[in-house]
């Protein structure tokens, strides 16, 4: 699986017309053909594509994606210590936690809103509440996230100056006290976290609603009601747990979308996460960084799917027994 991904990402990079040397040479008009050749040798660009792939794969087994073309001293992954003892962090190492933080916070907000909304829509199926939520879902599906970001940036950031519109910290971040730092970070994170959750909300709400509708028609719910359990208990202990099962899979499947979606959001809000790093790397034709991110992004997806499968087995005893029996 990973090998397939690495093959695809590697060969896409070589579809590219021109290479890094043309980029570098354009910064330095004096660069001769000879020095370009040296550069190519340095990065093994002079070897045939298949040899490059082999070399790359060999280094990748140690998670070494090579050195960024654009910022020479910085390795793409894992920190290094130079001879003076200065620690240089890897580009992905710096960017990944930021993106993960934003996406996980966003996911929590999405779920916190989507589950109650989905339950309401399912319980009051075809009522005005359900119709309002459905309408909201359609709009949520269709709204371009970056446009929503721009509007909110204008409204909250430019017109009213309530929230900062870019970056993770204010310029005077270092001089703030702890409380000030927390407040500063939160206000910077607010828009980038909330906007993707709003657009992601629609899909999950619809999913919870359909799951609940299916479950509410099951015999054991009728049984629970017939036993005289109060409706609250029926919904939250009997129905919800079963309705949540497919949701685990959906969240697992939505990971590539979340990572991919971070490109636009991070570019708009100038957040130094994976998305922005990727965008900049693509623009600079920085092969090692691009391939590192493609591979790490895909590996994250696979890990997400695996976690979803594990969570599923944990939540649903039927799956566990099914596995044991096989």
């Amino acid at each position: 699986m990973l090998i397939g991904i690495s093959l695809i990402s590697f060969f896409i990079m070589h579809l590219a017309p021109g290479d890094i040397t043309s980029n570098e040479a354009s910064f330095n008009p004096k660069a001769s053909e000879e020095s370009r050749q040296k550069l190519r040798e340095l990065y093994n660009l002079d070897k045939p594509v298949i040899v490059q792939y082999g070399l790359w794969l060999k280094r990748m087994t140690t998670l070494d994606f090579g050195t960024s073309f654009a910022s020479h001293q910085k390795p793409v992954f894992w920190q290094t210590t130079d001879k003076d003892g200065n620690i240089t962090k890897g580009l992905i190492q710096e960017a990944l936690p930021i993106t993960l933080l934003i996406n996980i916070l966003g996911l929590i907000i999405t779920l916190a809103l989507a589950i109650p909304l989905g339950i309401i829509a399912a319980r009051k199926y075809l009522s005005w509440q359900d119709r309002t939520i459905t309408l909201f879902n359609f709009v949520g599906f269709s709204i371009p996230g970056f446009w929503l970001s721009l509007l909110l940036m204008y409204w909250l950031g430019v017109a009213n100056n309530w929230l900062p519109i870019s970056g993770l910290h204010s310029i005077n971040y270092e001089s703030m006290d702890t409380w000030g730092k927390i407040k500063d970070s939160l206000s910077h994170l607010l828009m980038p976290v909330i906007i993707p959750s709003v657009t992601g909300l629609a899909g999950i709400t619809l999913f919870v609603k359909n799951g609940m509708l299916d479950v509410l028609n099951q015999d054991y719910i009728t049984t629970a009601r017939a036993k005289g359990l109060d409706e609250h208990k029926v919904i939250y202990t009997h129905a919800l747990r079963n309705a949540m099962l497919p949701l685990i899979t959906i969240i697992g499947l939505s990971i590539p979308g979340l990572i991919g979606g971070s490109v636009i959001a991070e570019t708009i809000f100038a957040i130094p996460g994976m998305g922005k790093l990727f965008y900049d790397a693509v623009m600079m034709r920085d092969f090692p960084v691009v391939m590192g991110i493609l591979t790490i992004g895909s590996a994250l997806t696979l890990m997400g799917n695996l976690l979803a499968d594990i969570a599923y087995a944990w939540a649903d005893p039927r799956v566990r027994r099914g596995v044991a029996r096989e």
Partner: protein
Amino acid sequence: MNHSLFKKALSNPLALAGFIIIMMVFLLAMLAPLIAPYDPDDINVKAILLAPSWLHWMGTDGLGRDVLSRMLYGGRISLLVGLVAVGISTAIGILLGAIAGYYRGWVDTLIMRLVDVMLSIPSFFLILAVIAFLTPSIINVMIVIGLTSWMGVTRLVRAEFLSLSGREFVMASRTLGAKDARLIFMHLLPNSLTPIIVSSVLGIAGAVLMESGLSFLGLGVQAPQASWGNILTDGKDYIQFAWWLSLFPGLAILITVLGYNLLGEGLRDALDPRSGSNK
């Protein structure tokens, strides 16, 4: 699609609403040369960043171009990209899905592995990487979106083929000596058409969003040609001075995508007997 099916589809209020929205957007885009008040590329230094007024209904941009005219012409691009990209992905999806679902065995395994691999690469990263290394142009955007979004259709067609193959009319036809091609094109494909149409319509919605996102990042449709996405890029640059540059193209994208989504979901409700009963 035959007449009665078409009628049935549009009897669904969602589908009808979506259909009307799409038709109106198409009409406006097609009539662009007739109804656009100005030349979309006409630069006017005396009319830079004017707010909406009777002269310029949607204001002007940083080069004094009329935003309404650019929106109308940009609509043509956005609609075209959506249709062609989904045409490509649906064609690939049907082909691979049919091969996998009909012939099964190792071909099936191979194709499904490929689907898994493609699905696990964050698609926006993939598209961005490919687009950035090719020269950005409308053609490339259409091809790349098409080439990176066929996986859903492939799975769909394969699943339909697998379930249809066991049905009596297919077995009967096979017993009577029907050739592979006849089975595929006369029996299996027509009977899987409904979910394919639904997923294509919803796919167009996704492709329009994708194109606008790419153009917004400067990797899609290139200036001076207008597209809703790249008008929004200007909107971002001038966000402090000109809200109209952000508002209108976004609304246009929202309305168009909403139209396709309504149409797709409506069609699903109307044509798919399974979803009608339990939803």
